[in-house]
């Protein structure tokens, strides 16, 4: 049997950080990732933060991947403006939260997980190979077993011969199978989770710059609450990437279970909001009707030619409307000048309309649909994030800071990854992997992380910034309970006392007040109605049907289902007919059945099913994530 020092299960941002750190410390580690390539299974909003807390330290991306990280990594745009919008029909009331976004922060960049994790992997793999380790993609871990007598920990997978390690890092995400195998924690329950659903909207770089009135490297983040929530607890987001937008909705899962609604309907509610409609709009080609009296073959030829022409048009246009790509292609000699690109573009356009009757209209283009559960660190972080010699990090450990507009899972998981790596490096040196020496040490390190503090209590400084940002909100909108809290918090001296008081009272008791119907729906809706600006949309977006969204996804089908329904007639399962983001469940005669082929592995159904990730290389492959 082969032997390695450390196995890391899962190649998301948390597992990759652990691999990079272990390798930097000269320790041998292998990372096993189920996806065909690192990055294809990961999805985020997402903004990647680097933080500088006043007290204590966190491990940031630059600490692990080098101080030149910002220049080398495939980041999208630096978020320089952060806004919260309250919505009601065509009215929007906006508050500037840039100060909250910049609070204790070095930077925040919009990112796309597929390419970012691939970049992390490249760097971590290079270092790992030097220590006799590396990344093995396309491998699904299905068991860990311990032979205490021989002091062996054995990793079993669907694809490879079993092998032996001294310690394990479980970085297998929110639907962690390692947590089930080790029984280190129960499955997360609905109150501890959010469901996130997201669409990538295509929009050329220059149009983004123009629409948002920003520079080529700047970006914006927009959050939404109010009637776009359709009365559920949560909200929406829109982040600018280089030449796409990330538009998504994040909702408390228990609120969705209380009154089930299709995740794509919540996404659509966002896309239909006139403010968002205007932000995503573009010029879109529309195919002309093909003469049905023509021979079948001729019709087919026209269809192919049109498809090819539209593709060419998009390719040239994407170049033309991106200053960096324009320059690059002129430099490499693909084009001689900007004028040449321009005339090529109008030539193609002319051909499209004159030869094939293609017209152009105002609309928007969606490129990828996705969804995933998010663990709410406030409610589900593991208090003891280990079992024997297995340490849990990131989403697998239920860790993330989600407080109001603060949405941070990536940086938290990266910090965990480094701490787990450090703890294991220390254990390797003493060859001591006992719970006392390894697990407890890691727990202490995690508890010292400022992020853990943020999951446990209210940060009064952050609260002040937030309250300052909402100073224009008419106080009479708020209920007596809310306005009292707000009044108390607005005064410096009392705020400090009050924050202490609520922290003594316990975060858990306060949360239902903060995360309520009133704060997500009622107050923002009324605020927008009363003080909002009217925005009218100049077109009606053609929002794709769910079936079309699914058809655009890239799957590597597995004949065997990775999910087994345990109770086909219980209530939870019946609600999944609505709540599965790709409609894998259906109900007939009171029995729920699954068709696993469209599954995007979000985990929404995992609590009450026999739920595993698909075998290596199988299942969903996100292109953006």
């Amino acid at each position, binding site marked *: 049997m*082969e032997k390695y020092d450390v196995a890391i299960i899962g190649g998301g941002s948390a597992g990759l950080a652990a691999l990079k750190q272990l390798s930097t410390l000269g320790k041998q580690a292998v990372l096993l990732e189920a996806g065909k390539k690192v990055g294809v299974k990961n999805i985020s909003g997402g903004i990647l933060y680097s933080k500088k807390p006043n007290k204590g330290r966190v491990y940031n991306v630059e600490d692990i991947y080098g101080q030149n990280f910002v220049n080398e990594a495939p980041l999208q745009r630096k978020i320089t403006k952060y806004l919260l919008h309250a919505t009601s029909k065509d009215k929007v009331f906006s508050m500037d939260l840039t100060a909250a976004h910049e609070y204790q922060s070095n930077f925040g960049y919009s990112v796309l997980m597929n390419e970012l994790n691939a970049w992390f992997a490249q760097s971590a793999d290079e270092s790992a*190979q030097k220590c006799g*380790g*590396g*990344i*093995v*993609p396309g491998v699904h871990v299905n068991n860990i077993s311990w032979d205490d007598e021989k002091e062996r920990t054995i990793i079993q997978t669907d694809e*490879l*011969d079993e*092998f032996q390690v001294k310690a394990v890092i479980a970085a297998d995400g929110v639907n962690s199978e390692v947590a089930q195998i080790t029984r280190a924690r129960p499955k997360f329950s609905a109150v501890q989770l959010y469901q996130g659903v997201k669409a990538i909207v295509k929009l050329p770089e220059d149009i983004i710059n123009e629409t948002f009135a920003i520079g080529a490297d700047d970006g914006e983040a927009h959050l939404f609450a109010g009637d776009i929530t359709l009365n559920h607890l949560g909200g929406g987001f829109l982040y600018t990437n280089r030449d796409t937008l990330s538009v998504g909705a994040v909702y408390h899962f228990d609120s969705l279970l209380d009154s089930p609604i299709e995740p794509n309907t919540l996404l659509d509610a966002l896309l239909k909001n006139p403010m968002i409609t205007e932000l995503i709009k573009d010029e879109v080609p529309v195919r002309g009707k093909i003469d049905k009296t023509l021979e079948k073959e001729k019709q087919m030829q026209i269809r192919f030619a049109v498809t090819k022409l539209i593709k060419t048009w998009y390719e040239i246009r994407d170049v033309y409307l991106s200053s960096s790509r324009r320059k690059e292609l002129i430099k490499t000699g693909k084009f001689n000048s900007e004028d040449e690109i321009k005339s090529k573009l109008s030539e193609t356009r002319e051909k499209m309309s004159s030869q094939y009757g293609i017209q152009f209209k105002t609309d928007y283009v969606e490129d990828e649909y996705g969804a995933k559960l998010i663990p709410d660190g406030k409610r589900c972080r593991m208090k003891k994030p280990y079992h024997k010699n297995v340490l849990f990090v990131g989403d697998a450990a239920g860790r993330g800071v989600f407080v109001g507009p603060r949405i941070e899972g990536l940086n938290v998981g990266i910090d965990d990854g480094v701490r787990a790596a450090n703890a294991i490096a220390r254990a390797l040196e003493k060859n001591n992997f006992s719970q006392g020496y390894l697990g407890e040490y890691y727990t202490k390190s995690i508890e010292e992380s400022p992020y853990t503090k943020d999951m446990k209590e209210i940060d009064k400084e952050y609260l002040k910034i937030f309250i300052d940002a909402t100073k224009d909100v008419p106080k009479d909108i708020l209920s007596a309970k809310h306005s009292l809290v707000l009044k108390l918090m607005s005064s410096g001296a009392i705020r400090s006392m009050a924050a202490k008081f609520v922290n003594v009272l316990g975060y858990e008791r306060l949360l239902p007040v903060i995360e309520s119907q009133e704060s997500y729906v009622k107050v923002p809706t009324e605020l927008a109605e009363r003080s909002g600006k009217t925005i009218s949309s100049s077109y009606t977006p053609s929002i794709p049907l769910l079936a079309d969204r699914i058809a655009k996804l890239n799957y590597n089908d597995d004949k065997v289902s990775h999910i087994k329904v345990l109770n086909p007639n219980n209530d939870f399962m019946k609600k999944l007919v609505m709540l599965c983001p790709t409609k894998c469940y259906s109900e007939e005669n009171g029995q729920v059945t699954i068709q696993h082929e469209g599954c995007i592995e979000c985990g929404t159904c995992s609590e009450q099913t026999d739920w595993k990730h698909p075998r290596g290389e199988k299942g969903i492959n996100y292109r953006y994530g």
Partner: protein
Amino acid sequence: MEPLNLAVIVKLEPDFSEGNVSYKPDGTLNRNETKSTLGPHSGIAAKAAFYAKVRYGAKISVCSMGPPWADIALQQAQQTCDADVLHLYSDRIFAGADTLATAETLKTGIEKMEGKMDIVFSGHRASDGETGQTGPQTAWKLGFTFIGNVISYDVNLEKRTVVAKCLLTLNGVPNVIEEIEAPLPVFLTIDPSYKSNFTTVSQRIAFEKYQKEAYERARNFKQSLKVFNIDELGVDKTLVGLAGSPTIVYQVERIPKGKATRQAEVFDGSNSEHIRKVVAKMREALSAMVIK
């Protein structure tokens, strides 16, 4: 233990994939208009060689006889097998070669390569020729043990032998897999159904490592490429090109399919006497083969 030294012979072929192929009005291939690429069977040979790179850290040289632009076939092969060395034998005199003359050129090239070869790989056949003879003829000229239709293999570095599984397909009989052990050097032609299997973590790590290296090398493939003309190769002019080709291809015809007649006998599976008869018949059909 001495490292393995491998060679792969590959061929530039017309790209028969959709959109890349063009025909003349008479139905024959329009070679000027059709794009060229690494032949699919050559690609499989390169994949088989890559197995030895991953398993045994073998050194791989890929060679081809062809026009100057056949270097792209070598580049594609390098991306598949992480070749250390690329050889292109290119000279007007080589043109018009049949399989025998091609084998002579390749044999000379392989013998010119650094070190003694342990295994030479070739594809099953070319997709634009119908013969599948270049491999066996090169093997014969090199004096190597020839093993055909290889679907998987392993090398015993200590004993310096190869153990290859070969697929035997005989009309009317289920496929048979034959296992052959032979001392190095050997010449393997690789069956289209060849598959590499990596089952341990270390193999998979090596696979990822060499694949990355292959990608980098192929991006700068000219650094590993050496082009030889006839003089540089030092081959006997009378044995290569048109002059060295005894074959005259008159026409390639489809082999007419024999009329199928069925002589079915019905057996009852619950009747033990019938079962005994079936077993006897199977034994009779298989007796002509040696099965390990």
